[in-house]
């Protein structure tokens, strides 16, 4: 609006300028015309004034008169020759002579004399007069005697003079005509210029009227604009306060009146600092105004919206948003402040912040709850499973053994469910991060197939894998997640397929550049999935309630996790299925092939562990017992402590090879105890301290490391993991290799020959042979027979020797039953089955 007005004003100014230039031009033209005219007229007047003509007509006639008078005088002298007459004659001669001289030499007649018709007769007359002079000036007698000659001469002069006079008259008449023509032309021009001048004046008048009309219109427009501006100011929701550079208030709109509770009349002319600036901001305000006046420096002016505080009439200080601008009005500078009462907004912002803080606190509480639950569930579960493992090693009746195994199975399922929930929670909270590594795809899949072989066997399924075309060997990929996804898919396939076939097909295709697309399909010949179920199985907590799959339980989280992982890898996952025929679960992910098999994660070799002197810190009695039993059974020396304080005391007494430290403990927790041991400078200040916790969240591990812990061992205690940790951190371990650095890959053929699976196979063969050797010695301990038969039966199932397995199970059951004859018959069958058993394989 104001911008528009100022543009208008500029436009008007240019119009005015143009008008003024035009006016000046016309004025100059007028002046020039007038000067020209005046000079013309002055010239004419001068011409008229300087009468160069004398009274020419009179002169020419007079000369004839004077000739006649001279002639008369001659005639009179001829009649009366008195001296008086003679003197009179001389006078007349002189008069005529004088006249002729004037005509002959006067400058007035120069032009005329150039005309022959005038010049020649005059010259002749002059010559005649000259000839008369001796007679005229001679004695009286001579004059009397010459009178007839004079008379005759005068007669001769007369026609000459007549001719000259006529010519002269004609010449001057023409001159006069020309002069008149010149005057009339000048007058005509005068008239023309006058008309032009009049027209110019008319144009000027028109222009002046137009300009004055425009000025008038501008006046109206300005008044309208001012009225509009006032309306805008008055209806603005923001307070608008206008002051001069001294801070004196010039304008205070109604929004300002409403916000600050001052009326316009009360504040106009007063200093803005005293009216709306809160007392604590006043020094800053005064300094700012002073600075701006003196140096022109502007900290707030023209810097957009600033959040400040202002004061109401009742002294209430409230938050405002302020935009301050400097404006130029004629020669005066003005400050225009736009203020918005934002107390409501600030209040709601504060509420929002509070709500956010609460939500964050809620999230934190959830995370804490999750960690707590993990610990609280895993710890007792750990106890249960550990004790079950111990129980399994004692002498149990056949029924008890089955119960124990069932309990173990249930416990493991429960643990699996807890882990699944944890996976989702970790992924959603973003604490689960992708970790790429270089792996051999074939080995990865082979590992999964190996691990699932026994389960597949149990359901009577045959499992196999292979590439459709050219295999892709070494790739960079998040192997751990891919492994988990494949395990889930293969596990599901096994679960829902009975006496069928499960195959894993792999195929590679080229993407842009080095990148390849890896497609993996887990194909089963199982019960299949209906179309409507296909749509929801990748959602969380989706299980299929179907009579066909009764007895197969799950959290319904496995595929949800698989989908999350695959999508996080930039891939996709899906299913195609026909109920009753089978399902194809496929996944497609981008992978980057790696050229050299420099590093890989070959499953760790079973490691030989040197017996250690250990300090075990655990507050839970059951867990303590389980762990101690396991450690002792591995040949380690175990000292126990039941809380952090006790642990620190014991650690001060002597050096341990390794300390296993629980985290959550009464009195002093594991982290505090670790710090004290590390800082105490005692015997174990540099001993490896391994966190022993059910809290497996990555951030928990970071916390443990920060507290000075060397490693981590998850609960429940797993023999293999325990062995790995002891090998890594126990005595004799090479501590320069204690980091997670992958081991250098062994040559391929060697790796194939000595793969752990092969070793397991050999071990199985050895164990089987040992069992039958021992059985041949006719042992009497039925419990031992059952136990050893059970162990080998499990291996036989894993290695595809189902006949042997069944036979050994029969031996186990007979031994448990204490039925000697049945045992003998079972032993016989078993020996036969052993001999008939196929070469152990894992696929």
């Amino acid at each position: 609006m104001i911008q528009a007005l100022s543009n208008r004003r500029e436009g008007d100014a240019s119009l005015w300028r143009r008008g003024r230039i035009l006016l000046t031009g016309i004025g100059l033209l007028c002046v020039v015309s007038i000067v020209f005219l005046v000079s013309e007229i002055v010239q004419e007047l001068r011409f008229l004034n300087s009468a160069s003509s004398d009274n020419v007509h009179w002169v020419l006639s007079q000369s004839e008169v004077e000739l006649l008078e001279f002639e008369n005088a001659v005639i009179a002298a001829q009649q009366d020759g008195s001296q008086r007459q003679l003197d009179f004659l001389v006078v007349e001669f002189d008069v005529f002579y004088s006249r002729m001289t004037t005509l002959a030499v006067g400058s007035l007649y120069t032009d005329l004399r150039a005309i022959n018709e005038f010049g020649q007769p005059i010259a002749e007359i002059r010559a005649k007069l000259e000839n008369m002079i001796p007679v005229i000036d001679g004695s009286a007698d001579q004059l009397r005697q010459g009178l007839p000659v004079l008379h005759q001469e005068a007669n001769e002069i007369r026609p000459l003079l007549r001719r000259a006079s006529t010519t002269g008259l004609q010449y001057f008449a023409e001159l006069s005509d020309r002069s008149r023509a010149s005057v009339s032309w000048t007058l005509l021009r005068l008239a023309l210029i006058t008309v032009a001048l009049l027209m110019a004046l008319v144009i000027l008048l028109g222009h002046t009227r137009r300009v004055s009309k425009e000025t008038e219109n501008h006046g109206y427009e300005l008044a309208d604009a001012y009225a509009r501006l006032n309306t805008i100011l008055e209806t603005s929701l923001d307070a608008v306060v206008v002051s001069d550079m001294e801070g004196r208030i010039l304008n205070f709109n109604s929004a300002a009146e409403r916000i600050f509770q001052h009326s316009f009349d009360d504040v106009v002319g007063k200093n803005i600092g005293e009216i709306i600036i809160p007392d604590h901001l006043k020094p800053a305000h005064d300094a700012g105004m002073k600075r701006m006046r003196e140096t022109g420096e502007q900290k707030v002016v023209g810097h957009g919206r600033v959040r400040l505080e202002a004061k109401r009439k009742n002294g209430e200080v409230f938050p405002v948003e302020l935009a301050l601008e400097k404006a130029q009005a004629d020669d005066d500078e003005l400050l225009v402040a736009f203020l918005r009462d934002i107390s409501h907004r600030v209040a709601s912002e504060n509420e929002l912040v509070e709500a956010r803080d609460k939500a964050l606190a809620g999230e934190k509480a959830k995370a804490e709850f999750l960690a707590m639950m993990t610990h609280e569930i895993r710890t007792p579960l750990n106890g249960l499973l550990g004790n079950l493992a111990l129980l399994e090693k004692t002498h149990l009746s056949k029924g008890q053994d089955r119960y124990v195994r069932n309990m173990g199975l249930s416990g493991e399922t429960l643990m699996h469910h807890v882990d699944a929930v944890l996976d989702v929670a970790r992924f959603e909270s973003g604490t689960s991060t992708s970790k790429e590594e270089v792996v051999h795809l074939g080995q990865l899949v082979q590992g999964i197939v190996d691990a699932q072989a026994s389960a597949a066997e149990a359901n009577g399924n045959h499992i196999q894998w292979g590439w459709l075309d050219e295999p892709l060997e070494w790739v960079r990929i998040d192997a751990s997640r891919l492994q988990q996804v494949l395990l889930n898919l293969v596990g599901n396939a096994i679960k829902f397929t009975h006496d069928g076939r499960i195959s894993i097909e792999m195929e590679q295709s080229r993407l842009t550049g080095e990148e390849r697309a890896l497609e993996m399909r887990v194909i089963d010949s199982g019960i299949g999935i209906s179309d409507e179920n296909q749509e929801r199985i990748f959602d969380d907590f989706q299980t299929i309630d179907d009579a066909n799959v009764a007895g197969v339980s799950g959290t319904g989280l496995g595929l949800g996790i698989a989908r999350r992982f695959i999508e996080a890898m930039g891939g996709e996952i899906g299913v195609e299925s026909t109920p009753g025929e089978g399902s194809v679960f496929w996944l497609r992910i981008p992978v980057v092939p790696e050229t050299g098999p420099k590093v890989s994660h070959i499953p760790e070799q079973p490691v030989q562990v040197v017996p250690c002197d250990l300090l075990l810190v655990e507050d839970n009695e059951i867990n303590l017992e389980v762990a101690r039993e396991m450690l002792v059974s591995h040949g380690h020396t175990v000292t126990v402590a039941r809380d952090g304080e006790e642990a620190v005391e014991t650690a001060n007494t002597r050096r341990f090879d390794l300390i296993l430290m629980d985290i959550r403990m009464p009195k002093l927790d594991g982290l505090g105890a670790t710090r004290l041991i590390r800082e105490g400078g005692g015997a174990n200040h540099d001993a490896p301290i391994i966190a022993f916790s059910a809290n497996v969240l990555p951030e928990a591990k970071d916390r443990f490391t920060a507290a000075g812990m060397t490693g981590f061992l998850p609960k429940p205690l797993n023999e293999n993991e325990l062995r790995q940790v002891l090998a890594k951190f126990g005595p004799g371990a090479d501590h320069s290799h204690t980091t997670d650095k992958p081991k250098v890959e062994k040559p391929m053929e060697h790796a194939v020959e000595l793969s752990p699976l092969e070793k397991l196979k050999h071990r199985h063969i050895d164990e089987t042979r040992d069992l039958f050797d021992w059985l041949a010695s006719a042992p009497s301990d039925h419990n031992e027979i059952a136990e050893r038969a059970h162990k080998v039966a499990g291996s036989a199932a894993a290695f595809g020797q189902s006949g042997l397995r069944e036979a050994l199970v029969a031996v186990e059951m007979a031994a448990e039953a204490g039925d000697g004859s049945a045992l003998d018959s079972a032993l016989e069958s078993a020996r036969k089955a052993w001999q008939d058993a196929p070469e152990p394989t894992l696929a």
Partner: protein
Amino acid sequence: MTFHRLAIALTFAFATFAAPLYSDTLPKPTGPVILTISGEIENTNVDGTAQFDRVMLRALDNAEIVTETIWTPATHTFTGVRLETLLEHVGAKGGLIKATAINDYTVEIPTSDATAGGPIVAFAMDGQQMSRRDKGPLWVIYPFSSSSDYRTEVIYSRSIWQLDRMTIEE
């Protein structure tokens, strides 16, 4: 009778008292008279007129005018007596001068023309006294070249030559 006597007496008295009115205050001319001024003048020398010969005019304050004229071919130096000087000299009281030439050509010159920078009654041109044949003996010359005010027909008509008489009138 008495009336007759009285008339004679009055006539006598008039004649007696008229004589001093012609008391001549100017010197008398000795050479040929070239200018006679009559009319409303205070100073006279012959019969109630002021008559001047060439010597008398030269004896007065002379003045020069250098000017062109339309009647002569070039610029000339005219020497003579200022009209103003001449009128003062004769004690002229009128406002109009009737100037007459030898052939009785007469013009009227208002005495207001007779100013300090005004016309002269010239008796010499380029140092030579002017003969009657050369527009002499006297020629009223205005300073034509000095101003266009003097180059008008009226002024030209007042520039009378072969002047020999002047009559001062009211």
